[in-house]
Each structure stands twice: as structure tokens, then as C-alpha cells.
């Protein structure tokens, strides 16, 4: 065996604290600690899990603070040789693209743990959740292709147990479907990973799975690039999920326990879109550019199809699940227009979708706990007895619709802006998704919360204090990201710029994809912030009263008032 060794340059730009390994190690350690707690000590189990996930969240937020906003490259790099024999390295880093996804994963887990409880078998439940957190953290930080693949696959196991063990209805069917779909989708990706490493072997000076070196080498022929890209794209298309491969999603989302749905929507779907960006477009810019129209088309189909099917749903949770298909369609559209606005919007939308859909799943989970049904027709008039609950739901729902001033809007707007420059007709169709989203969500809201409250609906318990505490960070993020997305966009911009430059440099005869080529000058960062500010101003003017209400949401007490004024709007 003469595989040339890959000597890792350990800790090239390494921060003084190995923050990224800590983000993986803390949840893993917590999982092991959980094994030592006796299984009937339910409160302690929850406390340990909450503590572990909160420390991880705190670490991720600390990392956010320490992140250098002007640097578009990799930060907090940790690189250790793992198996020289196989060319593997333990290569972790974040940049502006993955930073917010890591933070999002960090935040969602403690919230999911706080917000819901399993009804049985607490110990394995928290154990799997913590393992899931370990994997989710790793997958967004891995920059070694094989390490990424390992995390990408390993997250299936805890999620499979969570859906199968603590889900509802046809949970086993849903868990199996989820696992097998993803496994089958990613089977070819492993062949693709190995192929790209081998085909680049001469250019990179030895067998390596280091994404950066592979991307810089660009050693593949056009045909090989297309084939390997497709093997990656299939795996990610299942994960996103893109239109014809989405059928596992409604089942998995609906049958999963609330925490499972939150993580599935908030973190795991992003693996697909993040994968497209980091491993599809970055590694194979030429193939991605050539085939962009396919993915934009599938994304747009997803937007319209997801929205149309969501409208028809009788189950509230299934409705939210289908709304994910539509939202993810937006993200894919934004990624494959291959310009700065589109990609920035897509990343922002990944985070936004994680926050607002995660919050929606939590709320739906609470409705189910209170009423033991998710049938929209069996619910009604809930706002009479639970006004605060309804108000929180309204805010989240409006963010999911993409109301200006809330987080959903900024991402969607940027995506549409990018798409309009690169692929005008796709953008035109995609806009209809915004309207449809308003239709299905508002209609559902109307049926669930308005109207006369009968029977048990009249005694719907109000939002508890602990529940409010759990959902509050998400509400805050919804408003904050909607009103002031600049710090977030600033941090991702250099990295996205770099990516777009990389794409442009490596595509033969680069033009932005789509038949409608705008002869416009390339969009600069100033343009972007400018347009965005305009949009915000408009949004602020439209929803002035609403924002005032939201701004006062800092204390627990004022939350009620803020949400009350919301509800009047909704």
C-alpha cells in the first residue's frame, strides 16, 4: 500500500482554545454521563441533558462573539491527523457559512429539551438527543469530506431511535423510511467522495479528503465532475428534501416526537442545503453551474407543491411539515442562482427556517399535549382561553409566512432578489410561494385559534411560565433577525463573496444560470446592504406598531402585552 501520507499541518490558524472539539466533546460527554444516572431519576436526567446542551449552546455563542467578522476564511481551525493510512484528518473549522448553523444547532437543542418531555424511557431519550447533538455539531464543522460523511450518517441513528421510540402513530414505519431513504441516497456519495479524492490525487499531492485542498485543485474532468457532483447531489436532495424525493419528510416530521421534529426541521434538513453549498457548489463549481437549472426548477416546484399540499392538510403538524418543503425549495433556489445575494439569502433562510419552524413544531407539540389531537377540524377558538399562547403562535406563524420585519422576510427577499437577477422566471414563480404560504398558514390559524371554542377547546390551558421561558429565545431571534439582520449578514458576507469568486473563477465561461441573463453589473456588498436597508425601512413603516410591541419583549412580564398587540394584527 503506497498511499502517500498526508501530513497534517496541525493548528495553522488555531485559536488558543480548541472551541470546536469542545462543541463536539461536551454533548458526547453529557451522553456518557446520562448513562450513569439511574433511569427513574427523571428530573436529574433532564437536568443533566439540559446542562450539557446549555453549556454547548453557551460555547457556540461565545464562539459567535469571538468570530472575526471581516475574515472570509476558516476560523478556529483544528486539524489533526486521524489515519494517515487512509488519508483522513480530523479537520474542523467554521467560516461565515457554517458559523450560524453551528450556533443554531447549539441553541435549538436546549430549547427542545426544555420545551418537551418524553412520556416514558427518559434515560435513552436524553441519551439519543445528546448523541444527536454531538453529530449535528460535528457535521457543520467537518471540513474533511470523509469526516463530514461520518457525521452525516451517524446522525441517522439517534434520530431513528427518537422517531421510532418516542413518536406517534406509524412511528416505526416513519423511522424506517427516514433511515433507508437517507442511507440509500448517501450510498453513492461515499463512492463519489472516494472518487474525487482519487482523481485529485496527483493535483493535491497525495490522497486527501481535505475539502479545501480538493476544491483548490479542481482536478476533475468535466464529465467526472458532473458524475461525482450528481452522486453528492442525490444524497443532499434526499436530505433537503427536493421535490420528488421528499416523501419521507411528512411522515418523519409528523410521527416524530416534538423534540425530534424541531431538530429534524431546524438542523437536519440544513445538512442537505449546507451540503449543496459546501460540498456541491464549492467542490464542483462547473458541474453545479451547468446543472443549476435543474435544482432551481426542483426548488421552485418544491415551493409551489409544498405550499399547495400544505393547504390541503388536515393535520396541523403535517401542514408545518409540508411548509418545510416549500421553505427548503426557496433555499435551494437561492443557492443555485450562484450569486452573493442568493446564497446569502439562502444561508439566512436556513437559520430563519430553523428558528421559526422549530418554534412552530414546539407550539404544535404543546397543542397536542393539551388537546391530544392535531386535527385542525377538532380544534377551534383556542385563543379564547389561551390568548398568550395564540399570540406567540401568531408571531411565529407570521415569521414563517415571511412578513416584513420578521426573520422569514429577509432571507426570502434576498433569495428573490438574487434569483431575479440570475433567473427571472424562476423568481416569478417562486414569489407565488410567498402568497401561498400566507394562504395556508393564515387559514390554518383561523381554523385553530378563531371561531367558537367548544368542548375541550374552551378549556385549553394557557402558556405556562416554563414554556414561555423556552420559547422566548426563539421569539427574540425571530424579531431580532427580522429587524436587524446586519450583524449576521456582515459575518457571512466575506465567506460568501469568497465562495462566489471561487465559483466564477472555476466555471468555464461563467454566466449566472438561467436563460434570462441580466447584463447588469455584478452586485456588490454595498448594493446588497443598501437594498436591504430599503426593504427594512419599508417593512418598518408597514408594521410599526407590531415592532414596537415586539421590542418590549425583553422581560417576561411585558411579553404578554407585546404579543397581545401582535394578535390584533394577525
Amino acid at each position, binding site marked *: *500500500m*503506497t*498511499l502517500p501520507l498526508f501530513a497534517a499541518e496541525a493548528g495553522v490558524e488555531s485559536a488558543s482554545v480548541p472551541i470546536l472539539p469542545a462543541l463536539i466533546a461536551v454533548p458526547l460527554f453529557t451522553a456518557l454521563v446520562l448513562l450513569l444516572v439511574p433511569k*427513574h431519576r*427523571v428530573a436529574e436526567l433532564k437536568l443533566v441533558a439540559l446542562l450539557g446542551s446549555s453549556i454547548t449552546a453557551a460555547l457556540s455563542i461565545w464562539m459567535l462573539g469571538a468570530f472575526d467578522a471581516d475574515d472570509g476564511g476558516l476560523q478556529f481551525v483544528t486539524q489533526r491527523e*486521524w*489515519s*494517515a*493510512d*487512509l488519508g*483522513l484528518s480530523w479537520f474542523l473549522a467554521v467560516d461565515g457559512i457554517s458559523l450560524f448553523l453551528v450556533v443554531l444547532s447549539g441553541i435549538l437543542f436546549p430549547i427542545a429539551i426544555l420545551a418537551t*418531555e*418524553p*412520556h*416514558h*424511557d427518559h434515560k435513552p431519550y436524553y441519551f439519543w438527543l445528546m448523541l444527536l447533538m454531538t453529530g449535528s455539531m460535528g457535521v457543520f464543522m467537518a471540513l474533511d469530506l*470523509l469526516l463530514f*460523511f*461520518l*457525521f452525516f*450518517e*451517524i446522525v*441517522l*441513528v439517534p434520530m*431513528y*431511535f427518537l422517531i*421510532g*421510540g*418516542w413518536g*406517534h*402513530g406509524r*412511528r*416505526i414505519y416513519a*423511522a*424506517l423510511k427516514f*433511515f*433507508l431513504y437517507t*442511507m*440509500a441516497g448517501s*450510498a*453513492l456519495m*461515499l*463512492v463519489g467522495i*472516494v*472518487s474525487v479524492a*482519487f482523481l485529485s490525487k496527483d493535483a493535491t499531492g497525495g490522497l486527501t479528503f481535505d475539502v479545501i485542498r480538493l476544491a483548490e485543485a479542481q482536478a476533475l474532468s468535466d464529465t467526472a465532475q458532473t458524475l461525482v457532483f450528481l452522486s453528492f447531489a442525490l444524497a443532499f436532495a434526499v436530505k433537503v428534501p427536493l421535490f420528488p424525493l421528499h416523501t419521507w419528510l411528512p411522515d418523519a416530521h409528523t410521527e416524530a416526537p416534538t423534540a425530534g421534529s424541531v431538530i429534524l426541521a431546524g438542523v437536519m434538513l440544513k445538512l442537505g442545503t449546507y451540503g449543496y453549498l459546501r460540498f456541491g457548489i464549492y467542490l464542483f463549481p462547473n458541474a453545479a453551474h451547468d446543472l443549476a437549472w435543474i435544482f432551481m426548477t426542483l426548488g421552485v416546484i418544491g415551493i409551489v407543491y409544498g405550499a399547495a399540499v400544505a393547504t390541503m392538510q388536515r393535520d396541523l403538524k403535517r401542514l408545518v411539515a409540508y411548509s418545510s418543503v416549500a421553505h427548503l425549495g426557496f433555499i435551494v433556489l437561492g443557492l443555485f442562482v450562484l450569486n452573493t445575494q442568493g446564497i446569502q439569502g439562502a444561508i439566512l433562510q436556513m437559520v430563519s427556517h430553523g428558528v421559526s419552524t422549530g418554534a412552530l413544531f414546539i407550539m404544535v407539540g404543546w397543542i397536542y399535549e393539551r388537546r391530544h389531537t392535531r386535527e385542525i377540524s377538532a380544534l377551534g377558538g383556542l385563543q379564547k382561553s389561551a390568548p398568550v399562547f395564540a399570540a406567540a403562535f401568531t408571531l411565529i406563524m407570521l415569521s414563517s409566512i415571511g412578513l416584513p420585519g420578521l426573520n422569514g422576510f429577509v432571507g426570502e427577499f434576498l433569495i428573490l432578489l438574487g434569483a431575479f437577477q440570475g433567473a427571472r422566471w424562476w423568481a416569478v414563480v417562486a414569489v407565488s410561494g410567498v402568497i401561498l404560504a400566507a394562504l395556508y398558514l393564515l387559514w390554518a390559524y383561523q381554523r385553530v385559534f378563531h371561531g367558537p371554542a367548544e368542548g375541550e377547546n374552551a378549556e385549553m390551558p394557557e402558556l405556562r411560565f416554563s414554556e414561555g421561558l423556552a420559547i422566548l429565545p426563539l421569539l427574540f431571534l425571530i424579531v431580532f433577525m427580522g429587524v436587524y439582520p446586519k450583524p449576521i449578514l456582515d459575518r457571512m458576507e466575506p465567506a460568501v463573496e469568497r465562495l462566489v469568486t471561487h465559483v466564477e473563477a472555476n466555471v468555464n465561461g461563467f454566466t449566472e444560470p438561467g436563460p434570462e441573463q441580466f447584463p447588469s453589473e455584478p452586485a456588490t456588498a454595498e448594493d446588497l446592504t443598501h437594498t436591504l436597508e430599503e426593504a427594512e425601512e419599508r417593512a418598518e413603516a408597514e408594521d410599526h406598531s407590531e415592532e414596537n410591541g415586539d421590542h418590549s419583549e425583553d422581560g417576561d412580564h411585558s411579553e404578554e402585552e407585546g404579543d397581545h398587540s401582535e394578535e390584533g394584527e394577525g
Partner: protein
Amino acid sequence: MLSLLAQIDPPVGIPEQSIEWSLLLPVLILSVGAVLLVTITSLAPSTRDNHFPAIYTALCGVASMVVLPAMWARVAPAANAGGDPQTPAGLIGRALGAGGDGPQTIINGALVIDHFTIFITGIICLAVVLVALILPGYLDREGLAGPEWYVLLLLSASGGVILGSADDLIVTFLGLEILSIAVYVLAALHLRRSESQEAGFKYFILGALSSAFFLYGIALVYGATGSTRISDIAGSLQIPNESGLVPLNDASMLLVGAAMLLVGFGFKVSAAPFHVWTPDVYQGSPSPVVAFMASAVKVAGFAGMLRVFVVGLGEASGDWRGMVAAMAVLTLVVGSFLAVVQTNVKRMMAYSSIAHAGFMLVAFYVAGSDDADSAMTGTSALLFYFFAYSVMVIGTFTAITILGGRGDGRHSLDDYKGLAQRRPVIAGCLAILAFAQAGIPFTSGFFSKFRVIIAAAGSGAYVLAAVAMLTAAVSAFLYLRLVVAMFLDGGGDHDDHDEIDLTDADEAAGGEAALESDGSGVALAVEASTLTAQGADDGEPVPTAALAVLVATVVLTVLFGILPGLGGDILREAAAALG
């Protein structure tokens, strides 16, 4: 008497041989150990209690493993006499102060002792030790006794070692038969189960048929090349032919001969289309015996195949690689797709072992490549696969042995329902092993597959790699079904949140109450009482030795998943012996 013997002259005509007994030690320990075991237990009946023979057999296995590092250093190529001091093997070699003699051919060219032989011997001996440790618990439970199980185990292992080191087709056949005949008997040795008899019979009939093919193949290859020695065959295929043997003038005879040999080996390693015996035999045979069949027998079969094809017929690889590729694809497809419809766990594992044979065949295909680098990668991938799969499959069948219950019959998937509640440790171990076999990351199962894919992609066999991965995704379903049964199917009741295996009406009512009350203490109390009731209900004690084997296999599986580079130099050197 002695003086009489001394008067006998050595027979005229046969040149006097000096045999390097030290290099034969592993085979000697195993085979002489078997004979001694028969003698001891027949002279002292008190030793026939299952425990003495088990410990004795395990010690024989350990003893033949202990001599391996010294042998490793001894046969190291002269270039790195004593071995690389960086490696554990090298360190031991240095300490022993020996080494650098290069591969040794002993007994007039019958056996060749090189790093490859030693690696294979190590795996077979490991299998012997592990299986010897799970046998006594099984025999006690089944009310069986007798040293013959252990004797046959040792004999079979010695056959495997001979097969792995044979440098002559006749010796290969000898090894194959010693290995097989002992296993035929082992398969039928559960005298009170008719399935076991049936399995032994089927295995024997089909095995004899495949042996006939194999012999015919030897004859044809001999006809084509004029020798049965593997190294001479390799020489006679070389162009220009400098071996002084019959120049290859009949390529078609060689081709047919190679095909016949492939049939013979294909049967041993259960490659499609010669796999049909596997499910029946695995299902019927005593579970610990299946552990041995799936590990040592398969590994020895592949080892012989490597020697005959890669070393002997390597120059003619263009002739047989196509057949191997076709066999690999067929084996992968059959193993993964037919597994989906099975409901008996042992049958499922039989199909899984067929699918794994398919993966090994892919590596074998690469090992036969003309390109030396690719061939090396392929061989070392195959060697790692041998080790990882043997450990996983022995662990799996250890768990199956424990769970089989008295009569070794509780192997339906339904019997595994709710196992996580009843026997959490065994269920957890079996789940890890199942996921490992499915190729989930951070297990040795993933890296064994990954090495095969790397080898295949490196030699340009992308299609084979893609087929292998796709079928691996299909066979994941098989392992998931097992996990679903153990962890998620709480015993037939599919209600929301119902994980509790409800055994009687009283508890069922309690369980319902648990569902209604909102996760409070009452529910937990009920749940806890249900669980303890069941724990007591399932009172069969688990033999400690078997449990230790299970845990050890799990630890090894996970360890090699976290440190995939462990032992990489050993793999490389063992693979280099064939190159």
C-alpha cells in the same frame, strides 16, 4: 522396540527432509492439541464436563497465537530484518533478536510461511478462542456434552491454517477438506435437533459436490501448466517462460480449470450462485458453530482463493477477473435483496454473510489487478475485512446463541421483540453489531466497507463500488428490522408511547393507566414494576464467558471504528507477502 526402529533405514528414493518444525507450530498446536484432547478426556472421564475442554481449546488457540509474533519477525523480508521498530510486531521481532529470513517454504514446498499466512492464522485462532468460550454455555443449556465439539473445532482450524498457507494445489485441497469435514460434523452435532442433522447433511452433500469440482479444477490446471505447485504455476504463466515447466499451450484448459476452482471456493465462501446452502445450514446448525463457519471458514476459504488465484494464476488474471466481478455483483444483489423477506434471524444473518462475501469479492477483484499498487490496496482491504467481519459476526452469533433459549430454536424475529426491555445489555450489544454490519460510521464495519470502496475506486472499478454501496443500503434494511424488533416493537402493541411488553391482562391495564396519566410518578412506578416482572420472567442465566465474548467483540468493533488506522502496518506487510 527402540533398537528395532533404529535398524530401519530411511526409505530409498525419498530425499531426506529437514522440516522447520518451529514454523509449523500453529498447525501442530491445533492438530496435536485436538488429538491430545481426545486422549485426555477418554482416559480421565472426569474432564468431560465441558469446562475443561473449553479452557483447553481456548488455551490451544492462545498458544498458537503467542508464537505468531516471533514467526512474523522470522519471516520478515531481509530488507527490514526484525521489522520496523515503530510497529508492535517489529518491536517484538527486535526483542527476539530474530528475523529477516524472508518467506519460508517448508515440507518440500507444501506450505509457505509468510506474513499473509501468519495474519490468516491469527484470525482463525482468534475465532477458535472466541467460539471455544461461547460453546460451554451453549452445551450446558442444551444438555449436550463431550469433547468432540472442541476436538472438531481444533481440527477444522488446523485445516484452515493449512489452507491459508498451502503452496500446492493438492495441499490446498487437503486443507479445504480438513477444514470442511470437521465443520460438516459440527453442523450436525446437535443430536436432538432434526434441523441440525438436516443442515449437516445438506452441507455435506453440497460440499462434496463442490470438492469434486475443485479436484477437477486442480487436474485441469495441472494439465495446462504441468505443476500443482502454486509458485510453479505462476512461473509457467510468465512470458517469457523461464520455469522449465510445460509452456502454457492450452489456455482454454487453464480457463476451465480456473473456473472449476472458482466454483469450489465460491461454495466455501458462499458466493452466489453457489450460496444456496448457506441459509439452510446457518439456520439449522448450532449457533456457536455458525459463528465459526461465518468467520474462520469464510476467511480460510478466501485465503486459499487469494493464494491460488492472485499468486498462482495472477498472470492470467484477465481470464478470471471477469468471472469474479460477475460473481461479486450477483452475490451482493442476492445477499442484500433476499435478506429483506426473511423472518428468521439466523437466516437473515446467513444472507447478510452472503452480502459481506460480495464485498469481499469486490476487494478480491481489486486484489487481482495487474497494477501492483491497486492489488496491494485490494488485498489489504480484504485482510481488514476478514478481521472486522470475523469479530462482528462472532459477536452477533454469540448474542444469537444466548438468545436462542433451550433448544436453540427461538430465532424468529418475533422472539426478539421487546428485547431491549428484557435484556438491555445484550440488545444494546447486538444493536451495535447490527449497525456495524450495516456500515454505520465509527464502527469497524464502516471502515471495512470504506477500504473496499477506496480500493475499488483506486483501481478504477467505479461500477463495482457503486453496486456495492447501493446493495449495502438495501441490506441496511435487514439490520434495521432486527433493531426495530429489539428496541421499537414493544411486543405487538402499536399504540402511541407504548414501549412496554405487556404479558398479562393485569399489567396491560396498568400499562394503559401509565399511558393515560401524564408522565407522572404513577406511570413510572407501573412501568418499573412491569419491567422487573419481566426481568424475573426471563430468568435464564447468561453464561459469563459468552457475555464477555460479546462485550469484547463490541469493544473491538467500536475501537477499530474510532481508530481505523490501527494495525495498518500489519495489514500492509501481510498484503505485501502476496504481491
